[in-house]
């Protein structure tokens, strides 16, 4: 990557990144592409987030589900580690807590492939500065 020399360049890169991320949501194969974020801070990893993430990557590929599995930081639900956030195409993101490999298997089988909800959803109980702006 090259150096960003001006604020205008930075804005260009931002807009491209935003549209890249949107493309992931609304692109051609939006029917199939599933996005998963795994909370991988020290505490998540200590409760097995690494195993969960490896399992998700391996198992989704095995089952032929097209998905992007990425890591993120702490989602702040220490009581429910490991936590993952699943975004199905066209749907609101859902956070699941206590996702060990068995739970991950259930989530893939029932929620991702079957569209059924499974126990262990953590409702969003906070606002971010972005969500607050949208409501205004």
């Amino acid at each position: 990557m090259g150096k960003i020399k001006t604020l205008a360049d930075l804005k260009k890169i931002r807009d491209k990144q935003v549209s890249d991320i949107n493309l992931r949501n609304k692109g051609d194969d939006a029917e199939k592409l599933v996005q998963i974020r795994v909370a991988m801070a020290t505490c998540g990893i200590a409760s097995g987030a690494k195993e969960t993430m490896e399992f998700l990557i391996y198992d989704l590929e095995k089952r032929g589900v097209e998905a992007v599995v990425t890591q993120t930081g702490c989602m702040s639900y220490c009581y429910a580690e490991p936590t993952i956030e699943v975004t199905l195409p066209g749907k609101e993101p859902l956070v699941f807590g206590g996702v060990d490999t068995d739970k991950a298997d259930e989530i893939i089988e029932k929620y991702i492939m079957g569209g059924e909800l499974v126990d262990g959803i953590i409702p969003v109980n906070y606002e971010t500065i972005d969500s607050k702006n949208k409501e205004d």
Partner: protein
Amino acid sequence: MSNYSMHMLVCGGTGCKSSDSDILVEKLKKELLKQGLEETVQVVMTGCFGFCEKGPIVKIMPDNTFYTQVKPEDAEDIVEEHVVKGRRVTRLLYKDPEKNTAVEDTKHMGFYKKQLRIALRNCGFLDPEKIEEYIARDGYMAIGKVLTELSPEETISLMKDSGLRGRGGAGFPSGLKWEFARNNESDKKYVVCNADEGDPGAFMDRSILEGDPHSVLEAMAITGYCIGADEGFIYIRAEYPLAIERLKIAINQAREYGLLGENILGSGFNFDIGLKYGAGAFVCGEETALIHSMEGERGEPTLKPPFPAESGYHGKPTNVNNVETLANVPSIILKGAEWFSSIGTEKSKGTKVFALAGKINNVGLIEVPMGTTLREVIFEIGGGIKDGKKFKAAQTGGPSGGCLTEKHLDTPIDYENLVANGSMMGSGGMIVLDEDDCMVSIAKFYLGFTVEESCGKCVPCRIVNKRLHELLDRICSGKGELADLDRLKNLGEVIKDTSLCGLGQSSPNPVLSTLDNFYDEYYSHVVDKKCPAGVCKDLMEYFILEENCVGCTACARACPVGAITGERKELHTVNPDICIKCGACMEKCKFDAVILK
């Protein structure tokens, strides 16, 4: 794919479960089956909604209906009215406490979401190892704005107007701190990020560095521009390997993009950041001790003034800010001082991150606007006390803080109120205690931490704290006397008044605060020789209950000192004079006949 067109989310948090939410789930399923709707509507149990006060909660998707205080017998109505006839069950809707009208859907329930994330805005949202994701969320736009539109003075005045105060503990206004550093002329100045998070139970700084390292880097560059520094350091505990790794990745990415280094965004401003590792001494969170440690000296504080803003790292003007403070900066620059100062209380603006721990259901990080009450934090967001026990106290501010009790539950939490109630904000650790916790032992625990962590430079902290700890030890082991309580108070005040740095000055707080709020408990320890919470072993005795004892002799055989006597198939007894209180008998007894009281 499934054919579900409607979902019922029933709260399965501990609070709601104790009000029969699991029975409610069964009833809902049964009612749906009765109507032949089991293939159309799915009932799911979820985690806590953070609204335990009005539990059990049922949220119906996709129409976003939010029912509160739903009892199992309401299942029929919900299915018949809401699902079959498509009419909301008005009596179960949440009532707006001010207007007393039913609230239709969650979009109109602003009050329901008590948390507002500013410092944690990107944590758990973006990939911390990809600078592009940070840029996509307006990352580095704040430094861009500052470099192209604002002078350092204007930026500092914006920060002063925002009312942001240091999140590391003392709550000093950040903009003012920057101004002091700016006004001291020098050929070289430094920006330091204090990531030496040492309070037991606090981990928000680690989470921010692991989840959103770029926001801290960006804020440091902004600080550098304001005070006139071209170099910054992050002083981070070596015990945070993942945070260090992600910071290294983030610094390298920012350098590759030219967002750190020379001539940032073509403005002529240079700034680069390095890492310095701390070995985990608590006192190194104090800024002068931190600077000495960075210089390779012993991590000992020195008397202020001179403040680091005059003479800090290598004798040059240095600005030290905590991680959480810095994480707020980019949002303030982009959204403006007015926006930030509209959140919070009169003197404490913005939000504060708390690390909830202890006897609370939803252990975790929360970020709430200043002025949120302790009750909201513990009973709504935190989901209440574990196992339905009684709330006793919340310890805030770690080893430098104190206790808030039941009478403080409705006090809005901000810097001033916490200090007025004998505690302090500290870095935001909040340990919740229930009826089973002994306050004398808690005070002893925290003081033990300070005694270990005292650097030993000044006499009050080194010696008097040790004596204070011995007094507490004596009280816990049943050898205390009434006069000891006065001694505790007097010695505590002396330490407070005469210690060199913040560590010593605040070290007796846990003792003074518990003594103040729980005098009765101290009194029973020294006068009745009893520990009301049943924690202090030396004040307890083992007993065998007549009604449960079957005379199996298991306890007598397990006792290493032969303190238990009794014939086979007859009641056994413990001789307290011989008993060493090891608890072996209690472990061995299969009939719950051995008790401690």
